[in-house]
């Protein structure tokens, strides 16, 4: 099986690069985008299996990006990260088609579990 292609979208560089490294250690193909625009560019040029998307970002917000991704390719699964502990954003995201949401700081094992579940749901 091909390694899973994951796109990480978050404006916090330290967070996103470290998380990417950890996922790569687990044999995933990880790309990074620092804002919404960049994320959409990645999705267009090299569509990933799953997008891990921060809700709170400057510029294009996480939920808007989610909508646009879903519009571009509804098969791409999105897992939202809410920094707020605001389940409300998570629930709204799920209504917009997000696969699930996680609250920051995240537990890596939980994220991995959700990523595989998301990929599995695509099949």
């Amino acid at each position: 099986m091909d390694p899973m292609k994951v796109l990480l979208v978050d404006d916090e560089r330290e967070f996103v690069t470290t998380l990417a490294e950890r996922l790569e250690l687990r044999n995933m193909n990880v790309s990074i985008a620092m804002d919404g625009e960049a994320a959409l560019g990645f999705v267009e040029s090299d569509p990933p299996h799953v997008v891990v998307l921060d809700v709170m970002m400057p510029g294009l917000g996480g939920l808007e990006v989610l909508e646009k991704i879903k519009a571009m390719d509804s098969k791409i699964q999105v897992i939202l990260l809410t920094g707020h502990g605001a389940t409300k954003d998570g629930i709204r995201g799920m209504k917009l088609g997000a696969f699930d949401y996680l609250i920051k700081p995240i537990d890596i094992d939980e994220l991995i579990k959700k990523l595989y579940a998301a990929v599995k749901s695509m099949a």
Partner: protein
Amino acid sequence: MATNLKKWFNLRENLQMLTDVNSSENRYRLLQRNIRILMIVLTIVPLSMMALINYHQYQSSLREEIITPETLLANKTRHSFEFFLNERQSLIKSISYFYSYEQLSDEKTLNHILFTLKKEFGGFVDLGLINGADGTQLCYAGPYNLLGKNYAEQSWFHEVMLKGTYISDVFMGYRKFPHIAIAVQRLEQSGRSWIVRTTIDTAMFDNLIAAMGLDSESDAFILNQEGIFQTNSRLYGKVLERCPLKIPMGGHATYVDERKDPGGRDIFLTYTNLTYPDYTLVIVKSRSTVLKTWYALKSDLFLVFLIGSTVIVFVVFRLTGIMVNRIREADQNRELAFRELEHHHKLSSIGRLAAGVAHEINNPLAIINEKAGLIKDLIEYTPDFKQKEKFSSLVGAILQSVNRCRTITHRLLGFAKRMEVEIENLDVNELLEEVLGFLEKEALYRNINLGLELAKDLPRIDSDRGQLQQVFLNILNNAMAAVEDEGKIRIATWEKDADTIAVSVQDNGCGMSEETLRHIFEPFFTTKREHGTGLGLSITYGIVKKLGGDIEVKSKEHEGTTFKVFLPKKSNV
């Protein structure tokens, strides 16, 4: 003592105290006392004044009413006496004019006149003619042998010669009956003068007194100027004895007097002086008989005053008690409302602060989490090296601490987030069972007895599921923390009334001190030291209040704690 009293009755100070705000219990006692004193003074003083004024007015007007008949009686009787004496005097005077000196010198004629007088008027004892020049008895008709007796040295002779008439005081005369003598002088133009003198027994006096119709308690008598009885007194002595009462002589009015007689009896005296001779008519009545109506009125007045005062005091005491209680309750309610408001303010400002702090901390926390996570990954993916175990445990500790921080920030955020509510129709029993699902494992592990007494027909309510879950999770978590292993937690639901359902969670754990109980719903108050944020119950309280419910807690140290949550059936959020 005096200054104390002064302080007590210092009106200004007392009034000041009425309005002073001071929440101590003492204040209500003071307030109650002051209102009572003030009200009693304000009511009893005018009542007493009214009673006093009435007393005096009634006394003066009633006195008039009581005295008038007494003086009338005295005057009437005096007139009778005067009339009686005048009549007798006039009679003698007429005789002295109708009959000449010569006729009166004739014993036969004199006897005849005496006979006629006795027959027509009664009471006449004798009749005599006395020479005006030398005072010798010239002729005499009567039981004594007085012919030739000389009266020139006697005072009555001088008086009759001077004034023309004379009426004597009473003396014991013929057959030991009291008598008076009446003498009249006749002066002829020739210069010859003579005196007609008669003696009358005073049985008529007794008749006149009897005519007054006095009761057995009362008495009436005549005194002469020296205070000697001229008639028999029922109470104070026989005729010609000295009267024990001191009656002031002289004056022409009718007088009344209240005093004690020598026997110690309270008497009401009425006395009046006859115009002529110098007699005084005295009427003695027992004071209580005369003033009977006054005494009755006085006791009525006193009774009314007493009943009035008692009623006033009773009403004032009851009313003040009720009033002060109401004030106290109102104060307490106000204070409670104020505290609740304060609490709310505290909560919401802390909520905002907490949200800010949590949000700011969350991002670096996420970075620490990932960095430490990566280190852990790297250690795990690297083959054995020196001190691998040590590094692994160090990173594990960092991650654990991050986890703890996360719990705290999540709670803080949850605390801030309580402002939003999503209402749905839900079954509280079901919700409780869901929540208990989280705790069953721990309960099983610690062998804690979870007793459920859920009402079968508990009505569904409109409320926020998530928030209620948090409420019961918090309360149950506290209960679990409070009980020892093998402890007991009892959860019950019931319908409290038409609008409310109730949930109680009772444990037999360590309980709380009163001090703890007082602060239990305050944010950041905790007894768990390192393990708690001190937000759990404050959040719980906030949620329940926001959902329109109420929460109460009872606790006793070493016995256990009971939380009761009351929730409205219909949400008005």
